[in-house]
Structure formats: C-alpha cells, structure tokens
C-alpha cells in the first residue's frame, strides 16, 4: 500500500478547492449520503461531480465507501433458505402462550 498524497499536493488541492464551484473534500464528505440517495439539487450534484473528477482521494474514498456498503447490504444477512429452523422449544413456547 502506498502512502497518502504528500502535503504539497494537498496544499495545491486546498487552493484549488477555494475556487468558484469548488468544494473541499470535507464539504464533499457531507454531500455523500444525499448524493447516493439522489437528493442533491442539480447545482449541488454538478459541484459534487466536479470535485469527484478533480480529486483522486475522494474518488477512491467514494469507491471504497460504496464497496463497503454493498458488502454490508449483501453480507449483513444470510439468504433465507440457509437459515436454521426455529428451535422446537421456541415453537412450543409460542404456541403454549397462544393457547393460554
């Protein structure tokens, strides 16, 4: 694994992100959820995507964020057909409570 971007590169980015229609990575971070849920205005999306084009760190970050989210969604629960049956004593407890 290589190291994070060197300080000089980040300083140049820092100046660039102060230009009109530019946002910092920190501001970009706050837009990620709304971007993924398609809740940004057209202008906000433009600004977001512009940052994404210019900033490798955020591009990689977002790709990893999405990969991790996909893993959580797919890996977080087992497919229903693989689940074990309900323990018999639980079935009995439910039925007995019902018949009281």
């Amino acid at each position: 694994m290589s190291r994070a971007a060197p300080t000089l590169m980040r300083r140049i980015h820092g100046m660039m992100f102060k230009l009109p229609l530019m946002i910092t990575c920190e501001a970009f971070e706050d837009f990620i959820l709304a971007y993924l849920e398609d809740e940004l205005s057209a202008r906000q999306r433009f600004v977001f995507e512009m940052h994404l084009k210019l900033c490798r760190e955020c591009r990689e970050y977002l790709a990893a964020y999405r990969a991790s989210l996909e893993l959580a969604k797919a890996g977080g629960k087992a497919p229903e057909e693989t689940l074990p049956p309900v323990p018999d004593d639980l079935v009995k407890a439910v039925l007995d409570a019902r018949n009281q």
Partner: protein
Amino acid sequence: MEPDDEAAIASIAAGDRPATEDFVRKHGPWMLSVATRIVRDTHHAEDAVQNAFAKVFDNIGGFDGRSALKTWVHRIVVNESLMLMRKANRSRTVAIDELQPVFDNNGCRIEDRWMTMETPETLLVRSDIRAQVSGKIDLLPDNYRIILVLRDIEELTTQEVSQLLGISEANVKVRLHRARAALKRLLEPLVRGQAV
C-alpha cells in the same frame, strides 16, 4: 394479500393450532435472524421473536392487508427487538470518532492510496464473508449500528427509522453516514484484499 396468507390468517385468528404452528415454522427463521441482528444475543433474540409472535397473533384478526403480511410482521419483530436491544450485553465496541475520515487543515482528504480494490462480488463468494461483515458491524456502538442495520440491512426508510427511534430524520442521516464511514474503515483490510 396472497391467497395463502389470507387462509392462514383466518385459521390463526380462529385459534387453529396446526395453522399457527405452520406460521411459526415458516416465518420464525427469518424473524429470528432479524432479531439476532438487532439485539445481537441469541437468548434475547428468542424473547423478542416470542413477543413478536404474541403481538402478531393478538392483532392478526385486524390485519388489513394494506401492506404485505411479511412487511407487517417484519415491523413488529423490529419493534420488539429494539425494546430488548438495550437489555442485551454489549461486547467490545469501537470509538466511532476514530474511524471517521481525516482531513488536513485545508479540508483536503487524507486517504491511503487504493492500489487494488476487491469487488464485493469477489468477496461475497467467500464462505466466511458474512461472519466477517456481521462481526465488523457488531463492533459499531449501538446508536450507530442500529441505524445501519435498520436502513441498509433491514431496508427501512429514513422516515421509518426516525419514527422507530424517536430521533429526527436529519439525525438518522448523519448517524447513518458516520456508521457507514466507520464500517468502511473496519472493512478496509477485506476490500483492499489484505485480510486473511
């Protein structure tokens, strides 16, 4: 409502034991898995499922079929699990702040370069992946973990989560994003292909 469901509901409402048992065996497995994800403790999860069945049977006569039966039961088991979640013993959790993205004082992201990235498809064929992912999710503190579980895994809406937990939708979104960011960090060794 599916015809199957309709017949089952009528029999259960009438107190038919075999129909009730069929229902418990059919829906119990996924209900138990939902409850386990929320309370993270088998014993409390079984209690939550038992309570949920009691609620379902008490109210099944009045089930109006406006949502799918499964959706209705799902909401009930989520609710019962949330009530028991706070009672379950918490194991080790991580500090959420330490897993948030880092920026320098220009607001520039400090992120290790991604040389390779495993795709979720590749990772998901691994037999241990579910245990790994669930294990990482379980490390998140409850007030973040529960939002990620409800939104991303149980697929509730932001509005539903906000109502269930009694917090604002804005708060749900902030915590969801922070939980996802923390989980990204925890799953990084896997996604970078470095995990054993």
